């Protein structure tokens, strides 16, 4: 078996099939990065998985999952002020959380260098929105490099690290979902480990590091100057690339994955437009754009999500009085979704119908296949919780979701969690919903990782301002949705065993008097506790606890003495009331055409949380089945 950890530390040059999220870790090693921080969020957590594949003692840099993206950014920044090249990575919306710190970075003389790796998510594959984080680059005067594939992820990180170190400024490496997860054979250079210099080199003389009053302006001036330097560098950078097809009429300015889609869409086109692919997407290399505009009569700006580049190109053309016809976004559709080859074909067909025919997707006349939304896993403690809580509440009560696996409770058959915003927002929104409200109870949900991430301010506010809501902490011991990263109450951090920070004691310390807790598999008891809690005037809490069963089952299966248990339905006793399928809703239960219910033996983990759901006790206790794990 090829070991990823060994590969990432290999000293001689090599090629290997890796995804973007792995390639970047090799680049960190080669660049001499000393500190890497993060908070988990798709599409980036596999970067940490690659880091974890290197044994801790062999790891050439320090890594931590911080409690949230803002803290992660601060840790990386602090380390860089001591002279260590640092990197922070997180998902798109993570930048909103980090923003208060992030927007200041460009004002600072970051002597070690700092790369901010963003995992943007065009198409909202696994995010609450598809925000285009290039806007933050403009807001904060921070350059952006944007690779299109794993080979470029590796190369661009090395460039970003180098630039950042030389100019002592932050550089954004903007990845998108299908760059993070794309796989191809990447050619890596050799690596010679260098002795690390641990000297804490922080010195106020390198500053100022205090942006207040009149000091803000020289600091801002420095940020703007740096941006000029990067712009000059960008003109010569090989990260920008021209595909010269000898077409003097038409050209396309694009970047990243949309460029790959374009190249494929244009494969069989006779008069291929020339392409200017920008690798440095902010600041836009002005001279390169001018040259390209002058060389073509019509230029299409092909960019995913928002129209930053289009505005730049049009402004340049206007400034110089160029007659080149520049076309960017043509309708709202162009602003939405990932620029897959299908999408790019559509966009290009709208732009130049003579060049690219509109896609003809002959509809297949056949009954649609039922949707398959994601759902809670077999045995999930959140399912038991929702099943019980739904019965404990009145239909008119308001339930507020937060981010995490339990968000999926909004789906049928539970309909628990009727509104969602972002991490930690449930308590604040719930507090607002409780004002003037004497008739409808407000119940909010929150996962344990979220509790630490951004949950506390809303909770403290609810106590401080005496809001009348009930919070249910969905405690499963891990950051489940993003792949089981440890958090402050897990008893481990990325590197070692730690003391758990108990959520209950935090809440007690805040002075909450009504706190109850229960394992979610005790459904009846949970229902009772919720009814008691909502009857309390003020802020009450129920801690609904059960370990993540996906994580637990995976761990169990690795044990040599593992035996699989599963439940069975006694068809004699079963009265086909369908509570197990239509209300409890474990995916293990399948509905036969004749109305019978069976257990899917591919799925059942024998947790037995379903037994209580059956009014006729037709679900038998989990029994050992003759299947190896």
């Amino acid at each position: 078996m090829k070991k990823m950890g060994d590969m990432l530390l290999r000293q001689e040059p090599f090629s290997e099939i890796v995804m973007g999220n792995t390639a970047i870790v090799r680049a960190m090693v080669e660049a001499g990065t000393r500190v890497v921080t993060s908070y988990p969020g798709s599409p980036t957590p596999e970067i940490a998985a690659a880091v974890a594949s290197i044994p801790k003692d062999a790891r050439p840099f320090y890594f931590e999952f911080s409690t949230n993206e803002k803290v992660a950014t601060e840790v990386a920044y602090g380390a860089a002020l001591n002279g260590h090249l640092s990197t922070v990575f997180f998902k798109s919306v993570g930048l909103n959380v980090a923003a208060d710190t992030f927007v200041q970075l460009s004002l600072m003389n970051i002597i070690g260098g700092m790369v901010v790796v963003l995992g943007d998510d065009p198409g909202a594959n696994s995010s609450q929105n598809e925000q285009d984080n290039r806007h933050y680059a403009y807001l904060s005067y921070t350059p952006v490099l944007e690779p299109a594939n794993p080979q470029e992820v590796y190369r661009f990180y090395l460039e970003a690290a180098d630039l950042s170190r030389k100019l002592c400024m932050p550089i954004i490496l903007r990845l998108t979902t299908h760059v993070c997860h794309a796989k191809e054979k990447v050619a890596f250079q050799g690596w010679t480990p260098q002795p690390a210099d641990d000297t804490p080199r922080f010195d106020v003389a390198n500053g100022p590091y205090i942006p207040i009053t009149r000091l803000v302006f020289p600091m801002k001036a420095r940020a703007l100057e740096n941006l000029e330097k990067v712009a000059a560098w960008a003109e010569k950078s090989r990260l920008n690339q021209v595909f010269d097809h000898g077409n003097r009429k038409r050209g396309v300015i694009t970047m990243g994955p949309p460029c790959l889609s374009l190249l494929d869409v244009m494969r069989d086109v006779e008069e291929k437009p020339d392409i200017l692919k920008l690798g440095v997407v902010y600041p836009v290399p002005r001279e390169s754009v001018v040259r390209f505009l002058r060389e073509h009569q019509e230029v299409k700006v092909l960019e995913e999500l928002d129209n930053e580049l289009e505005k730049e190109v049009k402004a340049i053309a206007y400034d110089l009085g160029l007659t080149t016809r520049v076309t960017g976004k043509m309708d709202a559709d162009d602003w939405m979704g990932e620029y897959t080859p299908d999408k790019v074909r559509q966009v290009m067909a709208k732009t130049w119908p003579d060049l690219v025919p509109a896609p003809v997707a002959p509809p297949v006349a056949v009954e649609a296949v039922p949707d398959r939304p994601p759902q809670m896993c077999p045995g999930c403690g959140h399912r038991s919780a929702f099943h019980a809580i739904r019965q404990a509440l009145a239909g008119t009560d308001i339930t507020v979701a937060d981010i995490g696996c339990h968000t999926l409770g909004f789906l049928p058959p539970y309909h628990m969690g009727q509104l969602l915003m972002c991490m930690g927002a449930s308590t604040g929104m719930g507090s607002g919903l409780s004002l003037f409200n004497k008739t409808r109870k407000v119940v909010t949900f929150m996962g344990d990782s979220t509790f630490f991430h951004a949950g506390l301010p809303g909770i403290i506010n609810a106590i401080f301002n005496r809001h009348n809501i009930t919070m249910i902490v969905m405690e499963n011991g891990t950051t489940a949705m993003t792949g089981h990263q440890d958090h402050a109450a897990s008893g481990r951090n990325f590197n070692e065993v730690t003391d758990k920070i108990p959520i209950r004691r935090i809440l007690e310390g805040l002075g909450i008097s009504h706190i109850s807790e229960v394992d979610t598999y005790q459904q009846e008891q949970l229902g009772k506790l919720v009814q008691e809690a909502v009857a309390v005037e003020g802020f009450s809490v129920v801690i609904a606890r059960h370990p993540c069963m996906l994580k637990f089952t995976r761990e169990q299966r690795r044990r040599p003495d593992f035996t699989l248990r599963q439940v069975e339905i006694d068809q004699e006793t079963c009265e086909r009331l369908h509570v197990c399928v239509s209300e409890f809703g474990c995916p293990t239960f399948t509905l036969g055409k004749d109305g019978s219910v069976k257990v899917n033996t591919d799925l059942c983990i024998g947790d037995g949380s379903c037994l209580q759901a059956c009014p006729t006790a037709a679900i038998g206790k989990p029994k050992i089945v003759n299947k190896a794990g």
Partner: protein
Amino acid sequence: MKSYNVYMSGVGGQGIGMFSEALVRAADHAGYTVKAVDTHGLAQRGGIVVSQVRIGETVHTPLVSRRSADLVIALERHEAQRALIEMTATGGVLVFYDTVWQPLDVRLGKAPEVETAQVEALCRQLGVECARVFSPDLPDTRMQNIAVLACICRRNLIEKVSADHFRQAMTDLMAGGMLENNLALFDRELQRN
């Protein structure tokens, strides 16, 4: 080979990731340039998991366009039908493992389960070759994907990618008892008609 597009689909938990990685590595061992991409994250919670693999020198993006997959592989019957409708090129091949993980609406009694015959009929209608895989005696349901891999190899669906390339790929990815069991099953399934 100009370019060859593979679209794989299954349900979170079925092992699409490992399957795709094996295919990518087998094609690489056969000397092809390969690009691939998996869906990760949210979709894994019992949702649809997709992997796309494109083989060929002239390929830039790993993303397969609609109705242009030369080979569609599905590890579940509903996903076979869905991918067949959305992705298979005329003249393409569908290989699917005929197990059912009922989608939500089927379990709720709001939609009928897709039947094997429907998948086969649609293949005929679309001019797609259909290969149904089903091995009732697998030691572990999580080895269904090996049975599918063996079917692809047995039928020579990817030009020049041989059994040895698949074995090499599996050896890259697994070790110990797991590797032995999977190799043994692969070889056993290769003998199937």
